[in-house]
């Protein structure tokens, strides 16, 4: 009797120690993620010191990029990164969410699974391959047909003025849209599939059509997942390097027209870092990395705020 009690107590103690060790190990792993982010920011901060001291805040507002006189400015790159990513989302979100709705609500299960498999394959294709695809197929198409067509129909807008090179913000936005599709489609489809059947059945029972059910009941229920997928896609678009540098034209200047060439932060770092000589030049590129990091944090912060705002508004509805 006493031995049984003793055995139970030792078993409980050893399972408690086991639990404690497990907690500690997992806590260390989580802390490592935080530690890596802190080390990253620290290295970016230290590495950009010569440039920050020499250029100060004007770095964020200047459009000049002159390695000979060592005057650098981040504005054209921030502009290019934001414009191409925004354009990519503008194209891929409606198409991606629409495709996800089709795959989850309307397609037969076999078709849906097969197509989803193919879409997820798209996510595995390396960025360089997309870049090559863009150079050999998308750029000539844009130069010969796409851009002249846009100039002919929408040429009165400031977004579609200027010569049609084929490369530029628009082409970069399109290839980024193709690269963000798989993320938006697969994650949105998962969230839509996770909506409980009784929600759909209740809507149908109340007399709504299939489309009304999908659009007014299922999609709002899966809204958080869909928004999450959009920000996943945005994260990829902001940091995309090789595909962008092959089709954006690599011209560090700001143009209103989408047909004009531009530059993005990731592209300029990839192109110029290995040959950057001196001390201000490479640290200016590191400072651009810091800027991209901050832009990513700001956008993700805004995303969080938007999610909080919409959920609060949702819960206030009677």
């Amino acid at each position: 009797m006493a031995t049984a009690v003793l055995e139970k107590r030792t078993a409980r103690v050893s399972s408690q120690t086991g639990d404690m060790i497990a907690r500690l190990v997992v806590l260390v792993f989580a802390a490592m993620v935080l530690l890596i982010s802190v080390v990253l920011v620290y290295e970016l901060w230290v590495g950009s010191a010569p440039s920050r001291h020499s250029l100060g805040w004007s770095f964020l507002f200047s459009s000049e990029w002159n390695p000979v006189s060592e005057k650098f400015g981040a504005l054209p790159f921030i502009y290019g990164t934001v414009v191409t990513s925004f354009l990519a989302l503008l194209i891929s979100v409606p198409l991606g969410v629409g495709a996800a709705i089709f795959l989850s609500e309307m397609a037969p299960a076999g078709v849906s699974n097969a197509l989803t498999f193919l879409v997820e394959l798209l996510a595995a294709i390396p960025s360089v391959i997309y870049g090559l695809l863009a150079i050999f197929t998308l750029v000539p198409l844009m130069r010969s047909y796409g851009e002249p067509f846009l100039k002919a129909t929408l040429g009165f807008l400031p977004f579609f003025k200027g010569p049609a090179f084929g490369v530029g913000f628009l082409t970069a936005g399109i290839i980024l849209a193709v690269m963000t599709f798989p993320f938006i489609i697969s994650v949105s489809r998962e969230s839509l599939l996770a909506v409980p059947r009784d929600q759909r059945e209740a809507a149908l029972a109340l007399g709504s059509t299939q489309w009304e059910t999908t659009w007014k009941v299922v999609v709002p229920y899966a809204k958080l997942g869909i928004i999450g997928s959009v920000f996943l896609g945005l994260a990829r678009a902001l940091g995309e390097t090789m595909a962008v540098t092959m089709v954006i034209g690599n011209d560090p200047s700001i143009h209103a027209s989408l047909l004009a060439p531009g530059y993005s932060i990731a592209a300029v770092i990839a192109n110029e870092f290995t040959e950057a000589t001196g001390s201000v030049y490479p640290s200016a590129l590191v400072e651009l990395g810091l800027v991209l990091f901050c832009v990513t944090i700001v956008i993700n912060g805004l995303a969080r705020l938007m999610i909080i705002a919409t959920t609060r508004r949702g819960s206030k509805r009677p």
Partner: protein
Amino acid sequence: MKRFPVALLGFLAVGASVATAQQITAAGATFPAPVYQKWFGEYHNAHPDVQVNYQSIGSGAGIQQLTAGTVDFGASDMPMTDDQIAKLKVHPLHFPTVIGALVPVYNLPGVTQELKFSGEALAGIYLGTIKQWNDPALAKDNPGVKLPKDDIVVVHRSDGSGTTFVWVDYLSKVSPAWKSKVGANTSVSWPVGLGGKGNEGVSGTVKQTPGSIGYVELIFAVQNKMTYGSVKNASGEYVKANLDSVTQAAAGAAKNMPADFRVSITNAPGKGAYPISSFTWMLIPSAIPDAKKSAAIKAFLQWMLVDGQKTAPMLDYAALPKEVVAQETKQIAQIK
């Protein structure tokens, strides 16, 4: 079972021979990488006890590695600046190895004749002051050629490179406007144009864009069968780039060669000299602590100046003129 000890002995023997081979590491310029790899392979066949390992990571990175002391010698498409030399503990000696050239490649579907470019015209195109192909400056260089009214699409390198340095160095010499407005460096603030990554990026963009002009290495243009124009040299003649005209450029500059070989031979004087040529250098420390390594490197340099120069033209690299070879042979004695 009997084969195992024999195999083991054989393996150990190979391992021993590799271990006793003199390992030399080098890193730097990408432009001469193909000929360097060929040379190091041939030299190893002739002298199996010396093995050179070359990484073509770029001129700037090569200089950084030499400064950090992680490689035995470096290679660069541009001579080191005084600041860079000051950072090295041991003074580096520059040894020109081969000569490269840049050619203006263009894409003009309607024009069958080969175009001629003067330095001022090229500078004007790249400054953005010459905007169309039928500009009077281009028409003056190409009498009798019907140039179209199309806009010129300028293509340059988006990545920093020794190639860019040679191009802008040439433009700085022929155009005071370029020198004051832009200057020369491995990476500059281009007034106009699209950027392509690497020789491949520039040639790809030029091939695909009608009315475009760009600059690539001569070897690249030849191997990819691209159309390139001739350039007016300092003596006033229009010279097309080939191995002879490039070697002529170096011979022309050899008369005023500084003792340390840190010279730019763009816009070189002399008949038949191609104006956009450049040496590429190996950067050897003047004092190498390991005596065996020092002897091996000196022996390699001797070989490079004689046998290496014979193989270079086979890969479309221009060999050094004999005046420069003679001067370099004397510099080898400076390595301790």
